[in-house]
């Protein structure tokens, strides 16, 4: 997972915000619940207290403590209701004290006595033995009746409320991580889903090439930034197409317009040179000019080939060609050229490797690759040409033991007019178009070209052809023809 991706960051933010919200709501819930439970407990204590007050108020003067206890036990039933009730006749004579509650949530005997007071009290008291601290909510109400002044104390353990709060707390603590665990991937998925049209756009944009200048991206009909993005990209493509077309037209026009003057220059000079009265020195100099004309001719021819390849005019024929046989026969035609430079040209005879394309162009591709390899290899070196089927792809491989390509030059070897060693190859008469023609032929055939190179050890050019779709063979021609 890419930690800097938009989807990842959005998902993290989403999970964080969701968790913060959940934590806030949870805390509020916890506090609110505690508040509510406490106040309802206080209300219930108040009601019981009122009942006890009524009992005391109705009691005639001189009533026995046992009668009061009887009345409280039957009407308030503190043990059964888990309440603490204590009635004290002021100043300090205990009239009634409830016993152990049904849930044993507190020890009635351990509840500390409040200081005598005249004002009502409501609050929390602590008491109990050292081993067991008990906390009670206690409401104390002083009252005066015919039978005397009393202090009514009513209490209830906080244990059940605190246990409830604690359980809710535990629940929230468990839910929060679960929520984050669920929310983060869900957020990631959501963001990815929202971004998927952008992804499709970029994938399609990546497949665009100068080979298909008319291709456009589908417009996402969303009416928002996505739609504007796809429309803007399409406008960009249109402008790119116009500029590519105009540069192609220029290349084609230029190489075309150069041909007629070249014919005249060459013809006139040749005619002069054939004249018997031309002195030897002049003849030699005209010859030198003619050599330059020949180089110009090669250049123009190369440019023309490129401009025609650019215009997609390659597939003049599309047949199944045995690459292995074509490679071997082409190598045979160039062997002498290699030997002349003291380079050994190896082209082992291999089983047929069938690719689909234009025979003449494929041959030109092999010739240019071999020419390049032979020129880059010093005397005593070896150039190996072979075509094999590797990983279900048909591969043409030209390996040399030459000087290799420096890393800074590697990205440019297929550029037009690029030379690794400008001075040396210009001497050779290379125009710097050979490899760019190779590249264009590769593109036209849907093939990829790779270069492996080690400085001082040699280079290997590998052309990987697409596999031929299943179906009938397109007339396989005799490779020797």
């Amino acid at each position, binding site marked *: 997972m890419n930690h800097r991706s938009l989807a990842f960051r959005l998902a993290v933010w989403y999970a964080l915000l969701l968790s913060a919200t959940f934590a806030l709501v949870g805390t509020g819930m916890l506090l609110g619940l505690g508040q509510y439970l406490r106040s309802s407990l206080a209300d219930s204590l108040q009601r019981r207290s009122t009942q006890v007050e009524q009992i005391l108020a109705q009691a005639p003067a001189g009533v026995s403590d046992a009668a009061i206890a009887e009345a409280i036990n039957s009407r308030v039933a503190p043990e059964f209701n888990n309440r603490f009730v204590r009635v004290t006749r002021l100043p300090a004579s205990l009239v009634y004290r409830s016993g152990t509650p049904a849930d044993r949530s507190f020890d009635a005997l351990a509840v500390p006595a409040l200081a005598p007071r005249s004002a009502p009290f409501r609050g929390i008291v602590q008491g109990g033995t050292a081993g067991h601290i008990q906390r009670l909510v206690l409401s104390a109400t002083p009252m005066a009746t015919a039978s005397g002044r009393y202090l009514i104390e009513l209490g209830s353990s906080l244990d059940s409320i605190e246990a409830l709060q604690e359980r809710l707390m535990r629940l929230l603590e468990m839910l929060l991580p679960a929520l984050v665990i669920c929310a983060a991937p869900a957020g990631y998925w959501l963001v990815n889903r929202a971004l998927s049209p952008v992804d499709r756009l970029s994938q399609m944009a990546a497949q665009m090439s100068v080979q298909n200048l008319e291709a456009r991206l589908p417009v996402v009909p969303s009416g928002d930034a996505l739609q504007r993005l796809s429309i803007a990209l399409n406008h960009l493509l249109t402008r790119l197409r116009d500029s590519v077309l105009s540069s192609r037209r220029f290349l084609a026009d230029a190489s075309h317009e150069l041909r*007629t003057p070249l014919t*005249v220059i060459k013809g006139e000079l040749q005619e002069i040179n054939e004249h018997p009265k031309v002195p030897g020195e002049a003849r030699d100099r005209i010859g030198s000019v*003619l050599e330059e004309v020949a180089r110009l001719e090669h250049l123009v021819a190369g440019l023309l080939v490129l401009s025609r390849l650019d215009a997609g005019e390659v597939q003049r024929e599309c047949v199944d060609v045995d690459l292995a046989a074509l490679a071997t026969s082409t190598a045979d035609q160039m062997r*002498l050229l290699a030997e002349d430079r003291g380079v050994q040209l190896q082209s082992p005879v291999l089983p047929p490797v069938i690719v689909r394309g234009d025979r003449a162009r494929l041959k030109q591709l092999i010739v240019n690759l071999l020419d390049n390899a032979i020129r880059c290899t010093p005397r005593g070196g070896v150039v190996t040409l072979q075509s094999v089927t590797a990983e279900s792809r048909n591969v043409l491989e030209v390996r040399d033991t030459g000087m290799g390509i420096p890393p800074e030059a590697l990205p440019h070897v297929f550029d037009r007019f690029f030379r690794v060693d400008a001075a040396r190859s210009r001497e050779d008469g290379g125009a710097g178009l050979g490899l760019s023609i190779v590249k264009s032929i590769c593109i036209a055939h849907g093939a990829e070209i790779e270069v492996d190179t080690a400085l001082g050890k040699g280079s290997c050019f590998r052309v990987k052809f697409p596999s031929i779709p299943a179906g009938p063979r397109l007339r396989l021609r005799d490779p020797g023809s």
Partner: protein
Amino acid sequence: MRVLIVEDDRKLAEFVMRGLRAERFAVDHAADGREGHGLLNTYAYDLLILDLMLPQLSGTELLRSARGSHPSLPILVLTARDATEDKVRQFEAGADDYLTKPFDFAELLVRIKALLRRMPVERAEVLRIADLELNRLTQQVRRDGQRIELTAKEYGVLEYLLSSPGRVFSRTMILEHVWDQSFEGVTNIVDVYVRYLRRKLDDPFALKLIHTVRGVGYCVRADEAHGDSTRG
């Protein structure tokens, strides 16, 4: 023999006309399609040389109308090898031959002569110059009676040079005749083959037959006359 050349480039036309006149042709020139059309329908020509890219009436239109009105007139088309080349292929039925610019005048002359059947393509069984002998049937080459072993390409180059002794063949002509267009741009393949050929044919003998004409190409000649040929 009267030839009409329809070519809008004045200098190219002049150069071709001068060359053809030197070969004793009568040459007329039209600078655009309409003028060419007019001349063609006024005089009787033995050959039409036509540039496809013309002002006024395009070369292809003129070709069509000329073919219609003069069914047996040999037509040689000149073209810059661009997209129109494929059109040329379509009109191959209309044009008898075509030549791409930049061309060598020598090549043009060969094509013209072939079209006019004045000089049928040399198909002699045995080609000879001085003591060199090439047998087209057995593909054997002998010099001074000794058999010389040549590779297929060496033989091809020699046979081509011998087809017209004394004439200079440009590297492009040799390349296109013996190899194919794939080798265009491969720097010096012709030179290498000619050097090997010389090593076998000329080096052992005093009389050198293969001559280099600097900037132009090669020719086979038995005399040491003009040319100051240098070994390249």
